[in-house]
């Protein structure tokens, strides 16, 4: 390859798109490193504190698309206090000062301010795509700035963010000259929007393929929007409430029949079950259906709908569909690859919506299943073993039994054998979440069999340090390990400190790790940031090394301690 001019090598590299592969390519030799870095356009940074924006800019001057992740995953469940960090502002400021022609920014679990959004909107003339997932800290004013200033905006995708809604007509801020929108998702916004502006925006966006509305968009507006945009591929419905005998509803039924490009349907943030029948004509073509936010749809409604969805590949649904409903899914959706069943009311165990039976039916009926997120009230070893026999293609297997330490209700045994069967037969498993009553044995199995495992989430499990050690020793590809409320302590933490350099991060909360052990780890491993989050009532940190640490988060980094930590975080 050394005989080829750089341009040829670069052209070859154009075909290498995955981040992992490009990273590998850059390590081959100096010449490839140089060619690769100048030609690199897309960069993924899984932990925003692992590197600084300055170093990013220095290495990749041709950067066009940046993905950043901030807070640890358990922040989604209120385990990370407010103001912990993950601020995007320094990144945007640094990029704005540089010559980088940023076109795409994708953020997950980061704190974003209106000022950042405004600076972003004004600094990059070619900016095309903003995707914010599970972020917070901004208001609709920031969104308005993006709308107003990004002349070639193609994508504005707000997923599950906490946005303060000022109802400032952000939608009206899209100039009349903006006709480039391909994707617009504002489902997570809570406030009213200017419906006329929305209609006009959709009317002048011929390339619009994806539109996800919020709850404030009523059914009659939906009907008008679909008239303007029958070419939509992905639709998120806001409010879906009307009188089925109304004229508006008839119009909606008619226009939906024209929307035969829709492959993905979500939303239904407000829904009248009697209106669901209008959707049936497009169900035939759906590959993704997300009803997990739809309140008030009963099992029957869901089942009737699903019966029409023979081509479904991904289904996100609430557990009120019930085991029987899952049986209908199993017999209808033969192409199903991903299933997520969310809890509608986890505190009411009397209304046991889905159990192990539903899961077994799915595993038997859906041979292509490779990704599962399943919230249920109970699970048995026998069921898991059956699932493991039926399904050997799992990449993601996340099981959440709502009572965190519930045993197999039939045998009263822990669920070690069940999960053991899952990891034994699913050799491609990359992500696993455990729950239920579990001993060290399950971790022995995981260490033995889950050789491709990259992310593991553990809660209320295990008996001793051995559990954690089995995992650390056996799972060679492990990148993210998050543990809460397990009896793992210093011995496990310190046994193989070098291991953490091969991982992105480790989270341990309410375990048995002492301050002293964390200090030892931090001292021995300068390439790790070891953060202690202390929220106890004592505002000062006790210096007693024997004290148990409430929350510890450690991650590898090239740039040492972060400068933006809040008071309650102790960086060792």
């Amino acid at each position: 390859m050394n005989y080829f001019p750089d341009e040829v090598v670069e052209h070859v590299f154009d075909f290498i798109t995955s981040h992992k592969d490009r990273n590998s390519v850059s390590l081959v030799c100096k010449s490839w490193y140089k060619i690769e870095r100048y030609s690199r356009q897309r960069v993924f940074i899984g932990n925003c504190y692992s590197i600084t924006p300055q170093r990013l800019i220095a290495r990749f001057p041709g950067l066009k698309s940046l993905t950043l992740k901030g807070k640890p995953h358990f922040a989604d469940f209120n385990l990370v206090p407010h103001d912990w960090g993950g601020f995007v502002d320094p990144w945007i400021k640094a990029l704005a000062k540089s010559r980088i022609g940023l076109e795409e920014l994708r953020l997950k679990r980061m704190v974003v301010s209106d000022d950042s959004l405004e600076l972003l909107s004004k600094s990059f003339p070619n900016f095309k795509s903003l995707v914010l997932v599970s972020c917070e800290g901004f208001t609709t004013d920031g969104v308005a700035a993006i709308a107003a200033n990004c002349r070639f905006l193609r994508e504005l995708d707000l997923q599950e963010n906490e946005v303060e809604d000022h109802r400032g007509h952000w939608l009206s801020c899209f100039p009349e000259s903006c006709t480039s929108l391909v994707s617009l998702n504002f489902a997570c916004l809570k406030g009213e929007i200017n419906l006329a502006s929305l209609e006009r925006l959709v009317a002048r966006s011929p390339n619009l393929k994806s539109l996800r509305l919020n709850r404030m968009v009523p059914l009659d507006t939906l009907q008008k929007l679909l008239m303007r945009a029958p070419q939509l591929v992905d639709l998120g419905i806001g409010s879906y409430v009307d009188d089925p005998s109304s004229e508006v509803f008839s119009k909606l039924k008619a226009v939906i029949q024209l929307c035969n490009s829709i492959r993905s349907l979500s939303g239904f943030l407000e829904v009248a079950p009697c209106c669901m029948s209008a959707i049936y004509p497009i169900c035939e073509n759906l590959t993704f259906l997300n009803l997990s936010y739809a309140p008030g749809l009963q099992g029957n409604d869901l089942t009737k709908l699903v019966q029409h969805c023979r081509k479904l590949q991904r289904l996100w649904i609430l557990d009120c569909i019930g085991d029987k409903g899952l049986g209908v899914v199993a017999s209808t959706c033969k192409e199903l690859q991903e299933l997520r069943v969310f809890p509608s009311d986890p505190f009411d165990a009397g209304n046991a919506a889905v159990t192990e039976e539903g899961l077994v039916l799915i595993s038997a009926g859906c041979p292509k299943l490779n990704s599962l997120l399943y919230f249920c009230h109970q699970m048995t070893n026998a069921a898991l073993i059956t699932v493991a026999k039926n399904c050997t293609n799992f990449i993601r297997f996340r099981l959440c039994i709502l009572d965190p330490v519930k045993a197999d209700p039939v045998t009263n045994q822990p669920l070690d054998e069940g999960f053991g069967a899952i990891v034994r037969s699913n050799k491609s498993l990359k992500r696993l979440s455990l729950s239920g009553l579990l001993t060290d044995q399950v971790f022995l199995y995981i260490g033995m069999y889950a050789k491709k495992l990259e992310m593991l989430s553990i809660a209320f499990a295990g008996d001793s340090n051995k559990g954690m050690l089995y995992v650390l020793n056996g799972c060679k590809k492990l990148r993210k390990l998050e543990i809460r409320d397990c009896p793992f302590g210093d011995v496990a933490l310190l046994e193989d400190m070098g291991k953490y350099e091969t991982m992105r991060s480790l989270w341990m909360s309410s375990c048995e790790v002492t301050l002293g052990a964390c200090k030892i780890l931090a001292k021995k491993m300068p390439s790790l940031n070891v953060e202690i989050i202390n929220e106890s009532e004592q505002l000062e940190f006790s210096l007693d090394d024997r004290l148990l640490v409430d929350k510890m988060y450690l991650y590898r980094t090239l740039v040492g301690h972060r400068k933006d930590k809040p008071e309650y975080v102790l960086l060792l």
Partner: protein
Amino acid sequence: MSSENGKRLLETDAGGLNFEATELTLGLPGEPRVTSDGGAKLGSKRGFSETVDLKLGDNNREVKLGHSLQEAAKSPVSKTQVVGWPPVRGFAKRGKKSCKYVKVAVDGAPYLRKVDLEIYNSYQQLLTSLEDMFSCFTIRNYLNEKKIEQVNGIEYMPTYEDKDGDWMLVGDVPWQMFVESCKRLRLMKSSEAVGLGLTTGPKYSSTN
């Protein structure tokens, strides 16, 4: 099952254990983290009147995690929660009907009442219920465009304060939008509204 397991789980002898009353705090996703005493604390208790305080994570505790959960299960209060469990983001927003209590003030009444807007499905139901609650008054019902019998000559206009702090006439916006934006209700004496030109009722339809 190993004996170690047993020790973690099935202790019923509370006296033999070496931890204090445990405290759990409860938080919903996205809520502010500062409690009223000003200390930065994870989670604020809200929305569930029945919670039990369980303390997980005391620095000096002897770990009996299973026992903490056993305590939770045995508590006389029905709704007990562990922070961050179940691990589902945006849980409060999925499929659940939350309760939305708002104050109802009636001009001239010595005290206020509270109603849960979530239990009604329409303006009609709400107004009927308010009429029952304040039975000596009648409420001017625009929606049906009919005059209700006036019992003692006093008519009331239902108004509400929205999220922006403005006082609005009940009935203009779709029901769900109203529930979402209503912070409190006030039954205002019609005589105060005379001269403001508020004689025609709103149309019940979605507006731009």
